[in-house]
């Protein structure tokens, strides 16, 4: 799967309250959430982001709450992928479960600046910075996650494996 878009650079420890403030969590409607995406980090982001754009952040992206509204808001805002030096644990799971592509690359995170044009291939993890003709290698998606993605995310996966009798443990 190949993606391309314009980079939006953010710093370290972007928390889920910055991605989607709790004051908007009285709904889980993706379109409503998208209107406030990244609001407390960059109030103009939601108006200015274009479909396919790529968020590039430093370490620990998505720290804080477990709210799945965070990857939902990012995806509904049209963002094609999030690249970060590292992701917070719950956000990482939620992003895969939602079908929001994410790539871990400290190298890309350190170098890319806002406005640069990126092309990336999720299957190889290769990120190309077309603005400066540079290439970065992202961490490959762990094998288990590839399987989860291959079945279409967590819900289809559960539908496939449902029926396992619960054993006492």
């Amino acid at each position, binding site marked *: 799967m190949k993606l391309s878009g314009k980079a939006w650079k953010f710093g370290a420890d972007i928390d889920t309250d910055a991605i989607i403030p709790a*004051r908007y969590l009285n709904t889980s409607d993706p379109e409503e959430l998208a209107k406030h995406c990244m609001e407390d980090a960059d109030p103009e982001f939601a108006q200015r982001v274009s479909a396919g754009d790529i968020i590039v952040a430093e370490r620990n992206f998505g720290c804080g709450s477990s709210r799945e509204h965070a990857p939902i808001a990012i995806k509904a805002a049209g963002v094609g992928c999030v690249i970060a030096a590292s992701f917070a644990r719950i956000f990482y*799971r939620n992003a895969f479960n939602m079908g929001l592509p994410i790539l871990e690359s400290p190298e890309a995170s350190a170098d890319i600046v806002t406005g640069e044009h990126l092309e990336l291939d999720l299957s190889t993890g290769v990120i190309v910075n077309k603005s400066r003709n540079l290439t970065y290698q992202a961490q490959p998606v762990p094998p288990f996650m590839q399987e989860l993605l291959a079945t279409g995310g967590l819900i289809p996966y559960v539908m496939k494996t449902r029926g396992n009798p619960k054993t006492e443990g």
Partner: protein
Amino acid sequence: MGMTISEKILAAHAGSEKVEPGELIEVEVDFSLANDITAPIAIERFRQAGAKEVYDAGRIAFVPDHFVPNKDIESALQCQLLREFAVEHKLTNFFEVGRMGIEHALLPEQGLVLPGDVVVGADSHTCTYGGLGAFATGVGSTDLAAVMITGRIWFRVPASIKFVYQGNLQPWVTGKDLILYTIGQIGVDGARYRAMEFTGPVIAQLSMDQRLTMANMAIEAGAKNGIIAPDEITRVYVDERAQRSYRFYESDSDAHYEQVITYDVNEIEPQVALPPSPANSRPVSSLDEIPIHQVVIGSCTNGRLEDLRLAAELLTGRRVAPGVRCLIIPATQAIYRQAMDEGLFAIFLEAEAAISTPTCGPCLGGHMGILAPGERAVATTNRNFVGRMGHPESEVYLASPAVAAASAVLGRIASPEEL
């Protein structure tokens, strides 16, 4: 080589003799939960998956606590969804306003989460139950929906970091100060993906309320779980509440830790975490004069009885400073009742503090104490991110109930020693 307490609990629930950090395993879940913000999405996913039944109606709790009592029509609709699902699926543990408490105070209090459990909750502070000696971690709503259907979840076994607390606690230093100090030392991703195991003679002396406070904030260091080995203090707490059998696990003496970090608590004074990060913790005495507008004493971190007693001790015979709003939010109905019976409410009311029904409310900027631009709050809550308690230009300073109460009286961030 032996296993840590986290590894042992996971191995037992995976049906394995042994698990190792990094290993992907599927485990049985003893208890799961969601709230009025996360359950609506979980319900939607549950239905999308075509599921007709939950795996066990007695082991899933829905606790509407964030925007309740319903703050607006949208919030009322979210709670209605939970209520209807709970009725349809005969969930034993749906807690309506009047019986409801903040989820992470309520479930231990009700004996629904127990030592040795694997607990999964659609709320990041699910890690609180590690204070009981459970493996407990927060997940998103979709993960929770899968648990509601199958009673199982996959995990990557976390490596463990052992924290050893030695020495003697200084006056007014609580579990909250220890965890703020710890996060300040290691940073908000200092334990990312790791198990934080809190040990040592200081932890062995801590009350259950303070242990729950410490485990509660493990997520603020990025941890998958925080955990404290259960002991007699744990046994006394759970024996009168447990609604099913439980098991104590402890780390083997030859268990492997990625790191062992030792703190001498003689060096630790009451802490304040400055905005916008829980890792910005400082000794309260090192701060310049910082005037405040609001104090919040409550939340899943510090809304338990001992927290209220501590606040009351400092507020006795004193008044909240002019220009300061002091909000006190007992975390559950039982805590509310007990605080009232003990006369704490009279002290709070004499001090001109306001007492609220249980709710997460202001902690996440939901309702019941939202900040205006430029306003500053001292809160016993767990996060001080930008905009967390209201306007993005407001500020939250995290502290213990003792520092919060002293600050309320003096109208600025203050040490209890100053009273």
